[in-house]
């Protein structure tokens, strides 16, 4: 890692993720030791207000599409199964899949895992995702709001720096 790396003794940066229309939010710690470049890139893109949608391949997971120009190389790739509260970055290049899953032939996205029985995957099976944060407080209420998207559809999602 370059000398730009933050002092590991400094507490990790935190982000707040919210569903403003529900009045629900949770706090997540950035995994800067394991995923420094992704954390840095995302930190500098905050705040982000995006539309979140429930995943249809992976289980208990919601995702939000980012600007396709926000392309980051894989880093701290999830080995196998995530745990509830894990937050990851994922990018698939143009025409990676046949058709246009989620209406996009190319996609940069953030995924949030809110319960067990989840494995990030797409039409071809499991996908390599960059695990960059984990929810450290208020997961239970946030998880209920994620699950609610199965019944009510998309929601606005706000991701902010927690200074």
């Amino acid at each position, binding site marked *: 890692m370059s000398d730009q790396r933050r002092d590991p003794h400094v507490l990790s940066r935190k982000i707040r993720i919210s569903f403003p229309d529900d009045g629900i939010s949770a706090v997540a710690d950035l995994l800067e030791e394991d995923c420094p470049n992704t954390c840095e890139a995302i930190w500098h893109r905050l705040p982000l207000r995006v539309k979140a*949608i*429930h*995943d*249809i*391949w*992976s*289980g*208990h*997971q919601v995702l939000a599409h980012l600007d396709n120009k926000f392309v980051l190389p894989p880093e701290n790739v999830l080995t196998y199964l995530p745990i509830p509260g894990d937050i990851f970055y994922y990018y698939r290049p143009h025409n990676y*899949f*046949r*058709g246009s*899953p989620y209406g996009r032939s190319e996609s940069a996205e953030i995924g949030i895992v809110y319960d*067990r*029985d989840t494995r990030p995957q797409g*039409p071809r*099976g499991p996908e390599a995702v960059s695990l960059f944060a984990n929810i450290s407080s208020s997961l239970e209420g946030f998880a209920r709001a994620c*699950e609610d998207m*199965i*019944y*009510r*559809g*998309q929601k606005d999602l706000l991701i902010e720096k927690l200074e």
Partner: protein
Amino acid sequence: MRKLLFELGGTRAVAEMHDDVVPKTCDAVWNVLPVEGMAIHANWSSREIMLHLHGENILRLPPEGPVRRGTTAPGDIVYFWRSPQMSRGKQLAYSSQFQRELSELAVFYGDPAGGGLAADDPARSGRDSNLQVATLFATIIDIPKEFAQKCEEVRHNGLQRLVVRRLERSA
């Protein structure tokens, strides 16, 4: 060959039952029709919506037909049942009557349809002990685009009313 009519958000699709392959399942489904309720989108098995059977229409059928492995094709209609003991926690508000049991008709509407993992669910397959049943019993021929679009809208906009009827010969 008997036919089924699916109505969702002002659109329609017609499916042909596989009477020759799974006659008992076809009979059982046919006998509870019409059924209706709020269709919910799958969150494991890609482009699939499900209609949970309620009250007297709940079906608890044994496995029938060839064991299926691998993909589920667009247009496939699968009868799915899962024993209460197979599910962690309660199933959710759309089927409070069931708590942990699932009895449903699953409609695979799109391309790619993925592995149909929820319908087959090899990781939790209880087929050998009849704890979980997934029987392909009908297929929509030439899925109307408007119908598939309405199915997809369920995941964008939430639950939507789905009606399944017999399509009688005179219809």
